[in-house]
């Protein structure tokens, strides 16, 4: 029989939240030439059973959400990044070298239950 999925309001569901990391807040603007900061974002929200059948969630999350309904002692699936992108940083080090470096997986583009 269909299991009545607990109703969760949209805003509590797993989704991407905006988070801008401003290097000035960290006091790093003195040595990071560019960028001034970057949109890192983050994932947060519930992964109820209904969610795992709709959004880009893994099969594993579907099974875990199902098992959580049957046995609440089993934790729910979690809200994690499913698509990430890199950033490049131009900065100066302690030897007066100017360095351009890329950092993979620094920006959360999409979230899902995993």
């Amino acid at each position: 029989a269909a299991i009545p999925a607990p109703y969760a309001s949209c805003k509590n569901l797993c989704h991407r939240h905006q988070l801008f990391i401003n290097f000035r807040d960290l006091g790093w603007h003195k040595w990071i030439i560019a960028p001034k900061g970057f949109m890192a974002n983050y994932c947060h929200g519930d992964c109820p059973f209904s969610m795992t059948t709709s959004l880009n969630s893994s099969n594993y999350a579907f099974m875990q959400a199902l098992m959580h309904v049957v046995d609440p002692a089993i934790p729910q699936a979690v809200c994690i990044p499913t698509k990430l992108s890199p950033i490049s940083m131009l900065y100066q080090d302690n030897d007066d070298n100017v360095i351009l470096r890329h950092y993979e997986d620094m920006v959360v583009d999409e979230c899902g239950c995993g």
Partner: protein
Amino acid sequence: LRFREHVFLKFLGLDKVPSPQKFQPVPYIMKKIFQDQEAAATTGVSQDLCYVKELGVRGNVLRLLPDQGFFLYSENFSEASSCLQKLLYFNLSAIKDKKQLTMAQLGLDLGPNTYYNLGPEMELALSLVQEPHVWGRFIPKPGKMFVLQSVPWPQGVLYFNLLDVAKDWNDNHQKNLGLFLEMLVKGDRDAGVNFQLEDICARLRRSLHASLLVVTLNPEQCHPSSRKRR
């Protein structure tokens, strides 16, 4: 919350927060590469972060090393046709051994690229320094000369490929004793020209800016297969 800064710095590949004393100029090519990557990331275009398409080399970290050398002044300036002598030195210690050097480009900025104030044709010679510089001895013992070329005016920036030299220095830091740069006046000189030449050489000394652009590839971050088909 006490921001666990050192953890994030370690992730960035730094052992402590840089506190630069002097701000270095950022060359156009590094700005362009940075802007191209930002644009690609913004538009979601997938990019191969282990290939620097603007330079046509594999690599994921670019470093611009400033020259830490000094000018040399030989006594018999008037007779010699030498206009400028400089020891160029680049500190490669920031490059840890496991990274592969894929490019090392020496940039010599001889000053504004303009037809105003043209000087006599020059000759530029670059040699490896074989022995440590002995204070009091005016000119380091130059070793193998690997560049000798005429430098018609105006010039702007001259580029030289130093990849083999830099690899040698990176393999054995003791070998890195720098380069000996000498600029000579081509052809003979008469007294009349002498006076102007002093000004030209003094102006050249003021405007000369040397730097070494180094590209490295970190095999742990850049697997051969990571190069996406373009």
